[in-house]
């Protein structure tokens, strides 16, 4: 143990210095700058004008903040629940040996590796109101929805695309979790007369809880940061129905040329992510505790 103890009190500091420097330059400084700029009206061209908390007030009064928050939250809830359910379902189906199961597992996971832009373009083609999905729905004698053009539907279409893409990731984590479950537990339960549902409820699900917590928090954070699918597929529309938080920031700074308001959104978003990260840490600890 004595080898690990620093010889001088200052040793840890210089060892940490490179990381601290990087963090300071690329994280703390930009964040501090965003906090500072959120108190100004600024378009990058004319001199900034100090406006106090006006940017925050305007975001609240115009309803933009609450709208970005609820849109993001609705999107995230659907994505997290959907990705977890689909990931778990697929993992249970594919938790077996054999080349075929292996191929299917790889195929499903491959969606996670493909770039967001390609996925978005592919799904635009599928989800166009005169596209493949609508043609299939019509062939069944039903009236297709306007998947990307209806303000009540578009957000859930994007959520479905996101679930499609990240379910493979959830599946891999759940597979690892499932393989950690000792088979003797199932054998004992089966001997005691437990059916498949009872075995899932009393063995699989409780033992997968740490994995679920991990999958849930990571996909929650990822879904809060969604941007690419929105940028490519709907540009925040129709009628702002898919203007999630990151897109709102992008729109304020790059479309509306409002640096102050975008910075205010960044600050609020940072606080939200901080809360989510605390949640993630808690989940990690729960997982570590359980294992």
């Amino acid at each position, binding site marked *: 143990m004595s080898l690990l103890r620093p010889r001088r009190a200052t040793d840890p500091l210089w060892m940490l210095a490179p990381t601290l420097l990087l963090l300071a330059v690329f994280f703390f400084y930009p964040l501090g700058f965003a906090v500072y700029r959120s108190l100004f009206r600024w378009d*990058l061209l004319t001199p900034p004008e100090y406006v106090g908390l006006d940017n925050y007030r305007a975001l609240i009064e115009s309803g933009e903040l609450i709208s970005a928050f609820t849109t993001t939250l609705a999107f995230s809830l659907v994505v997290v629940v959907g990705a977890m359910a689909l990931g778990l379902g697929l993992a249970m189906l594919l938790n077996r040996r054999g080349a075929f199961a292996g191929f299917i597992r790889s195929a499903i996971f491959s969606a996670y590796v493909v770039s967001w832009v390609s996925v978005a373009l592919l799904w635009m083609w599928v989800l166009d109101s005169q596209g493949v999905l609508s043609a299939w729905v019509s062939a069944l004698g039903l009236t297709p929805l306007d998947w990307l053009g209806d303000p009540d539907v578009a957000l859930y279409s994007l959520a479905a695309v996101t679930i499609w893409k990240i379910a493979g990731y959830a599946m891999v984590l759940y597979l690892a979790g499932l393989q950690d479950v000792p088979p003797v537990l199932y054998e004992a339960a089966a001997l005691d007369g437990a059916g498949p549902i009872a075995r899932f409820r009393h063995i699989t699900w409780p033992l997968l809880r740490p994995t679920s917590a991990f999958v849930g928090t990571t996909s929650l954070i990822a879904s809060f940061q969604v941007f690419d699918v929105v940028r490519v597929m709907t540009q925040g529309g129709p009628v702002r129905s898919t203007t999630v938080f990151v897109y709102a920031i992008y729109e304020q700074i790059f479309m509306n040329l409002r640096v102050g308001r975008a910075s205010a959104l960044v600050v609020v978003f940072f606080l939200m992510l901080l809360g989510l990260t605390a949640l993630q840490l808690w989940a990690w600890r729960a997982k570590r505790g359980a294992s």
Partner: protein
Amino acid sequence: MSRRAWLAGSLAAGGALIGCAESIPKGRQGVDLWFSYGGKNRQLLERLVARYNESQPAIWVRPVFQGDYFECLAKLRTAVAAGAAPALSHVVGEVVPYLAEAGVLEPLSDYPGAGELDFVPSLGQAGTWARGAARPLVALPFNRSTPIAYLNGKLLKEARLEPPRSWDELTEAARALGSRSGAAPRWGFECPIDWWFWVALVGQAGGQIIEPNGELSLGGEAGAQGVLLWQRLVRDRLMRPPPGRDYNAWEVVNQDFLAGRAAMIWTSTAFLRYLEENARFPVLAAPLPKHTRRAVPTGGTFFVVLRRAPEDEKRAAWEFLRWMNQAEQSVDWATGTGYLPVTKQAVSLLETRGYYQEHPNDRVAYDQLEVAMTWPWSRSLFRVQREVIQPRLEQAVLTGTPARELLDEARALARRELGSSEVSPGTSSGASSGRREVAE
């Protein structure tokens, strides 16, 4: 291949990728031109630039593609703030007053030969931005356009219809040309739910966005009439509101037209050549219909020289702009794309060559300039466009929210957020529709 050779090769390839912009030949004054045209128009611009670079030994213009108009504007603004802006770029008309008043644009009136540029008045914003308005020339028209109607000639012939000349005829034509049954349903009419086309509708209903006294009226009742027309057409399933926003929606409109999914569309004259060359049916261009009067806005972009660029780069940029505005280049650009010829000299050259007799579609946008509305000199115009109007148009058309209510809200927001005082009174001929400027 040895590992060392492989590493050296990779480094060279990486270096080439990073520095993929061509280098400026020795002894030439380099000028970067940030531009926003894609596809066919981009190829043509690059050919013109190459021709310029070969035509003289002193200047080398280097075109750099920067995404669509709004993406390019965002990059330009960031580059200006960082002191890394190019000498030359082009921006949409609505944003010129804003940039000029922020002191970003180089005044060009005193550059050699500036007084000799004979722009078609409405394309050069005569009276509001240039000549007649007491402010220096800061933007030269280049790819200028008006919205026009494109019709599927085959379907029109089958239906024995003429291009609609009024809003009522537009509704009837959309009804006659659309078909909602069968294996391949077709929309009668399609138009991006976009500020530009709404401004056209406002003008046609007799209104203007900004009154001559500088008041931001958003067209008053005419503003509502424009939205109501769209709402009726969409409600009756005569018109498809294209999905996506900004230029994504425009692209959908073009593709639907080319694929035969829409019989009649409104879009920019900029797509004339593209649509003609890619359609498998005869494309017929027609002026926009009238309601109480005929009116169209102008669109497209203006070349601007950035004030903070080094002096010799600005002078070189100016030389290039003069060359681009010579009749030959102006004509090549217009005939290759569908954009309007911006100088009177180019127009007479086209007329002498009998070009318009051979290409009647090209004549449509030019003739429409008779009823073109010039943009007022308003610093807030692009904010009104992006933040106030655009989201509300979409809302009105897609959710059926009452048009008058939304426009009242828009006016209140515009006044609170932007202040109508930002518009210079007197100089805003704002939509001086009906002026016969071509006759000047």
